[in-house]
């Protein structure tokens, strides 16, 4: 069953569509949630919450890529869970390192509560990513969108962990420079 058929099932309020979505994209979403929360149990809950959120938002939404839509929902729910973990002094590990790296680039940027500011920043990041070659762009996304640890990334890109870390460091530096040139305070 393809995306449009599954989405049509959501529109028809057919509960089987949720089962199909889980069978098709469950592993993908679980991997994202597990990377961020560091816990299989939390990841399962994020997946269930994401499927529920999709059920509640489709319709009216009609995502073109169901994988992308579920992935993004799962990612946001996993971040919520991570924040709760941190409040309860749990968590840590690789995700700490990823958040530190992200802070290294955006730490000094004003809090992007303003929608226009968020939009401008996202557009700037997109433009920066467009300027990278495909490998570096994928490396950045695997680390900072999928929250993969360096070992996974190194294996995926056929490089040593040190090389992956160095390449990411250079990308972050370039992104900082790019945002500065674009008028953001970093």
């Amino acid at each position, binding site marked *: 069953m393809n995306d449009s058929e599954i989405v049509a099932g959501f529109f028809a309020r057919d509960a089987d569509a949720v089962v199909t979505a889980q069978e098709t994209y469950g592993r*993908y979403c679980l991997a994202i949630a597990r990377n961020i929360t560091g816990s299989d149990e939390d990841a399962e809950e994020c997946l269930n919450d994401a499927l529920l959120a999709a059920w509640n938002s489709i319709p009216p939404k009609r995502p*073109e*890529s169901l*994988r*992308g839509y579920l*992935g*993004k929902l799962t*990612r*946001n729910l996993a*971040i919520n869970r*991570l*924040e709760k973990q941190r409040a309860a002094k749990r968590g840590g590990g690789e995700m700490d390192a*990823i*958040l*530190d790296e*992200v*802070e290294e*680039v*955006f*730490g*000094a*940027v*004003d*809090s*992007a509560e303003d929608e226009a500011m*968020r939009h401008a*920043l*996202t557009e700037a*990041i*997109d433009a920066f*990513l*467009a300027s990278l070659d*495909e*490998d570096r*762009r*994928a490396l950045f*996304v*695997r680390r*900072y*969108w*999928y*929250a993969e640890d360096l070992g996974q990334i*190194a*294996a*995926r*890109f*056929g*490089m*040593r962990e040190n090389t992956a870390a160095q390449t990411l460091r250079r990308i972050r530096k370039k992104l900082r420079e790019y945002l500065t040139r674009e008028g953001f305070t970093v």
Partner: protein
Amino acid sequence: MTKQEAFRLIGEIDGLYVEAAQDCAPRKRINRKRNMRMLAAAAACLVLAAGIFAGAMRYHEAARQIPLVASSAGVTARYTDKAFDPVSAGGENSLVWLSEDEIFTHWNTAIFRGTVTDVRNVEIDFAGRKLYRAIAWVRVCTVVRGPYAEGEEVKILLPSAAASGSRAEDCGVIESIRVGIEGIFMPIVYDDENNFLEMNGVTLDKRDLAPCGLADGERWAFFETPHRLIYAESAFPSLAGAKTLDEVEAFLREKAG
């Protein structure tokens, strides 16, 4: 901005990058064992061969990519070897009925005669939605009208992907196109008004692919084969009985004035 806010912000990046990163295939790590000379030599050879192969593949892939200058972000185009049959190739067809006279005035068409030197299928990706077309290269030998010159090689965007394998000659006119065939072509010359093809929220400027293109696969091309003349007979009643491209050319010259 807090760490979490920044991490959430990255969640808003273009979904295409996220999809592309998910689909990037795992690569094998190069194995380096320094203390085993033979193995090192073999590994070096392998690395060299892999490098050459990867370089060749990258060159091959780069050569397939068609640089799009005027199209919007989110559109990509590449040549493809994917084979199509006449049914699955699909395509756009102008359904506008035109009289024989209107065919010459409805659009700004060039008219020229020439030999097809190449035909390549093109995969156009409209932000994830793919469309297949073909580009034909035609070496011009006679110009009836239009901005092209004798001896020039003109690219023409075809309204569907070119079919593969042997073709029955009673298929649509454009499905008879192949390298080496002589024909007369009446492509629309793209300008700022007629150059866009929009799909899935992004826009292709057709001029990124070719300076001109056929409106449909029937009425805008004439081919001569050893067996017969192939053209849209119902659209050109005045050509009834014509057997050669010379007769077609004479008729087109008269119509084009």
